[in-house]
């Protein structure tokens, strides 16, 4: 029973009073302070029941609970209406008015509740009582944030540039719904597109400038991977050899002219922060720009995969679309917001003549018909009257013949 493990100092004065009464302890004078009650409670009640240590809990719980149970059963009848109500509230039951006709019922109910909770507490393991306090959602959120942080940190370590921390910061900041849609394409698709685009228009300066003008925030991540390469080629001695190997393997490399490369470096200047540029020596610039087409070829061969120099893809974890309560519509930008049937209906409605045109045409026709009718010289004779007249005539002829 949860009641017995609690600290008596936390009890309300009312409850202490009722507990003391339940154990047939003389109450202190009514104006005495709470600690007097607590002392009495500790002296009388706690000595009756056993002190709980976590080791012995299993053994004592049953017995003490039962003992307590019996004491309470006897005392239920002695409780005042208010006490009974308070006790029911402890068990989460909001009692109605406790009057003569309902008291017996509530007592019975309390007894039943006590029984069930005593049974439950016998089966209870340490610490499981608070399980309801922790919701899955909180944990989920926390974990997600952690992962965001982790990924941003690792990326930060890898690239070790200010630019990256900037983007990762924005990433972790925008990690949620609306802007992440902008972010992920920024990471992968534009860079690949940019690379291939660059290869196609390698010789022309104009297109280079065009891509330069386009190189806003979306291409920042590309410059980062480039920067990582740059750093690695600067620091690893083997990179030159591999670079040479790659160079021999590449077919587009020979067409590279240095002016384009310089332009490309200008692009770097724009997309990267100044610091990384300051760190890189001119020779490494040259080296880098020579290696650049090689990766371009590779990414040309595999346009869909984001290339990294090490072959390890340190990408931000992509969220499962529509999972974890994120609205699906934000995750599928290409997805139509409307259902196929409503789209169809819209198409049909586009082809249809608008309603007001229909009404106007209808009114025009009605007016025209009315004008025609009104302008007729003799009104139309009713066919039925014609028929009747014919019949009458026939009858007259018939009678006259007779």
């Amino acid at each position: 029973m949860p009641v017995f493990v609690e600290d008596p100092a936390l009890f309300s004065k009312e409850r202490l009073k009722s507990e003391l009464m339940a154990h047939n302890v003389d109450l202190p004078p009514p104006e005495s302070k709470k600690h007097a009650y607590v002392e009495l409670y500790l002296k009388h009640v706690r000595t009756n029941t056993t002190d709980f240590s976590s080791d012995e809990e299993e053994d004592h719980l049953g017995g003490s609970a039962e003992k307590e149970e019996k004491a309470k059963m006897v005392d239920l009848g002695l409780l005042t209406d208010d006490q009974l109500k308070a006790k029911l509230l402890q068990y989460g039951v909001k009692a109605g008015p406790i009057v003569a006709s309902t008291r017996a019922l509530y007592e019975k109910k309390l007894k039943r509740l006590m029984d069930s909770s005593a049974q439950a507490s016998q089966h209870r393991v340490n610490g499981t009582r608070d399980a309801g306090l922790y919701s899955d959602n909180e944990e989920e959120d926390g974990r997600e944030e952690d992962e965001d942080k982790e990924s941003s940190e690792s990326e930060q370590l890898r690239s070790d540039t200010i630019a990256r921390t900037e983007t990762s910061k924005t990433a972790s900041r925008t990690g949620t719904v609306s802007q992440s849609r902008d972010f992920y394409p920024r990471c992968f698709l534009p860079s690949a597109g940019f690379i291939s685009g660059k290869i196609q228009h390698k010789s022309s300066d104009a297109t280079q400038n065009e891509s330069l003008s386009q190189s806003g925030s979306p291409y920042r991540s590309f410059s980062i991977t480039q920067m990582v390469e740059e750093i690695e080629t600067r620091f690893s001695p083997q990179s030159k050899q591999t670079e040479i190997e790659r160079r021999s393997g590449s077919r587009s490399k020979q067409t590279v002219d240095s002016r384009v490369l310089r332009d490309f470096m200008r692009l770097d200047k724009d997309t990267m922060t100044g610091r990384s540029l300051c760190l890189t020596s001119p020779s490494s610039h040259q080296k880098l720009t020579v290696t650049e087409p090689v990766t371009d070829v590779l990414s040309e061969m595999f346009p869909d995969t984001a290339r990294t120099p090490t072959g390890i893809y340190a990408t931000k974890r992509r969220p499962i679309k529509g999972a974890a309560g994120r609205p699906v519509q934000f995750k599928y930008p290409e997805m139509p917001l409307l259902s196929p049937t409503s789209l169809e209906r819209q198409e049909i409605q586009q082809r249809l003549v608008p309603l007001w045109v229909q009404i106007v045409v209808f009114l025009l026709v009605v007016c025209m018909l009315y004008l025609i009718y009104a302008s007729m010289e003799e009104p139309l004779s009713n066919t039925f009257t014609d028929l009747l007249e014919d019949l009458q005539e026939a009858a007259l002829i018939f009678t006259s013949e007779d």
Partner: protein
Amino acid sequence: MSSTSQKHKDFVAEPMGEKTVMALAGIGEVLGKRLEEKGFDKAYVVLGQFLVLRKDEELFREWLKDTCGANTKQQGDCYSCLREWCDSFL
């Protein structure tokens, strides 16, 4: 309660006025006698008990069982009858 008895319909159809307990669905001769002995001679007295138990089904059923020894079906009939009456007339 999938189907309701004629007694139920009659009771729910109009204000209870001065009807006796036996007009309540689920309360017949025997149970009505027992209730009258305990002072619950009119249907509105039972309604009062029902209301003072905050329309709580469990408690009302329990009370009915204790007071007149109604079985589960009788309890259910009486409870739903009073509840529906309250829904329409309170």
